């Protein structure tokens, strides 16, 4: 369980909240690059950390992320005309550039300096990999751009999708470090998902349903090791890295690509789940990429033209009790992503953590909450830069390995859990 005041501290990320300030220390995904596919493409509404913003790409290809509402009388700039190197409010014609600077107020005299004094709040928007990232904090403390491996391998080796999740970011994120649910909730997928099946490791997973856990601090966050019995005298380890505030990776399976998530608060009752797959050593095959587009693995099949999953809260996630009986899915919901989302959303928009009954196997979650709380308080009270801002902390990988029983996964996997360009990932 968690005290109510701590639950509020961790789940509220609007402006001026301690957790909101913590998120504003980092570059976070704001949208997928595909959402602004070309110069002067339509502007996109973006709500992040409870702030309503508009993203656009101007005639010169510059990206902007600015206050959604026109400084004149507050019309939404989603209706704006994106043309001539700026976004023009269609109501009375005020025009803004990507920095939020007003560059034209047609009702004023031709050479008036009035518009120089009108500037909308704006944040940087930078493409790294398939994602447009923003930093919503103090420009004087802007960190270097993110160095997560999925965003840095060549484009043919990586794929990122996103989906709207209708619950607070923390309960979605907690699923990402909760290795103990995999054997139950996702057991169907281990046998059938094209991006999971066939790995030797899956057999250990299925045979030993009571994993042991080790949770260890890392410079940027945590490593959570889940261990199951392998052959006589050895253990099968699945190692999940967590980089603060909201980046997690799933341990890989065989030569399938590596995958993971970035969990981004939209507001306190909604979040974006960014899901990526990449292979450090080779291009994704056409079949792999198609499987990702089709919503397999960690990805979801979304309603065309949106980032809302087809299976969602309004249709009970298309639950299929017959498929469940046949043993195809454990919960009746199809797909890893929606299996997670259905249960996390079912807890309610912000789960009441005073009512939980945690067990020792939840230690990864307990520790992650602790780290977030401490970092938010150290930032608020002493201005301490939190873990995960330093880009060196981004260079981690998940791993799945078989080790002799006496070995510690931290000692034996020092290289495996480091992202080293061109070096294949460690996976069984």
């Amino acid at each position, binding site marked *: 369980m968690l005290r109510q005041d701590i639950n509020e501290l961790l789940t509220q990320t609007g402006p001026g909240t301690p957790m909101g300030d913590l998120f504003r220390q980092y570059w976070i995904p704001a949208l997928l690059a595909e959402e602004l596919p070309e110069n002067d493409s339509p502007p996109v509404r973006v709500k992040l950390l409870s702030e309503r913003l508009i993203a656009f790409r101007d005639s010169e290809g510059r990206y902007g992320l600015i206050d959604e509402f026109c400084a004149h009388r507050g019309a939404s700039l989603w209706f704006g005309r994106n043309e001539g190197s700026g976004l023009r409010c269609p109501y009375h014609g005020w025009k803004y550039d990507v920095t939020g600077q007003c560059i034209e107020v047609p009702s004023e005299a031709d050479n008036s300096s009035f518009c120089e004094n009108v500037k909308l709040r704006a944040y940087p928007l930078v493409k790294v990999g398939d994602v447009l990232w923003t930093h919503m904090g103090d420009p004087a403390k802007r960190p270097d751009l993110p160095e997560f491996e999925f965003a840095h391998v060549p484009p043919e080796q990586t794929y990122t999708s996103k989906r709207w999740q209708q619950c607070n970011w923390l309960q979605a994120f907690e699923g990402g470090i909760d290795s103990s649910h995999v054997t139950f909730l996702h057991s169907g997928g281990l046998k059938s998902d094209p991006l999971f099946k066939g790995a030797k490791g899956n057999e250990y997973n299925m045979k030993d349903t009571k994993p042991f856990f080790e949770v260890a601090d890392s410079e940027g966050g945590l490593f959570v090791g889940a261990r199951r019995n392998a052959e006589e005298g050895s253990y099968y380890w699945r190692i999940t890295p967590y980089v603060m505030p909201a980046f997690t990776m799933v341990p890989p399976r065989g030569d399938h690509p590596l995958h993971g998530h970035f969990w981004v608060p939209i507001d306190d009752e909604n979040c974006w789940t960014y899901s990526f797959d990449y292979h450090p050593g080779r291009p994704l095959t056409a079949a792999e990429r198609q499987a990702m587009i089709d919503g397999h693995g960690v990805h979801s099949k979304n309603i065309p033209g949106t980032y809302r999953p087809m299976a969602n809260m309004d249709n009970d996630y298309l639950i299929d009790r017959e498929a469940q009986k046949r043993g195809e899915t454990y919960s009746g919901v199809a797909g890893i992503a929606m299996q997670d989302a259905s249960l996390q959303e079912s807890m309610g928009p912000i789960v009441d953590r005073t009512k939980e009954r945690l067990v020792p196997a939840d230690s990864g979650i307990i520790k992650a909450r*602790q780290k977030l709380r401490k970092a938010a308080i150290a930032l608020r009270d002493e201005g301490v830069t939190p873990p995960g801002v330093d880009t060196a902390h981004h260079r981690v990988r998940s791993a799945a390995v078989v080790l002799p029983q006496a070995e510690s996964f931290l000692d034996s996997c020092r290289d495996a859990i480091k992202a080293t360009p061109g070096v294949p990932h460690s996976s069984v």
Partner: protein
Amino acid sequence: MSSLPMYASESAKAASASESRYRITVPIAPARNARVIALDTRAASVARRISDGPWANARFYTCEAAPDRGPADEFLLYRLDGVPAALDDMLRDTDVVVIMATDDSGGTRAAAIGSACSARAITTAGVVLGDGFEADDAVAALRPHARVLLLSADESDAFELLRALRV
């Protein structure tokens, strides 16, 4: 796509904050009867500091090697007030044991307590406090038995673990 209930008996989903307010509230009884065992001197002082927390049933112990003569895995248990305790009595009626270590001096005791817990089907958690890392042997000794090993530089993690478990 309709948001109407599928069956008459399904009158609500916890889809909104207002719906989730209707969750039944009954006080949650502490479910755990925890024993916390400190394996070495520094762990014992951590145990002392956290022992006056808001615990319902948790009891705290220290553990020392038996004076020379006995077998290597022989050890003595004490309550924090110094009163000796017997392993069997201590483990009676408990369902979770948290073993704390800060160095390697308690390695053999960790293994002995761990296997005693395993034999009695008591869930065991190990909290190994320290920086990078002075307690490799203690970790290795706990590994076969502890459902969870928390390796941490932060002593408050022990407190938070107990609080989260409602002990």
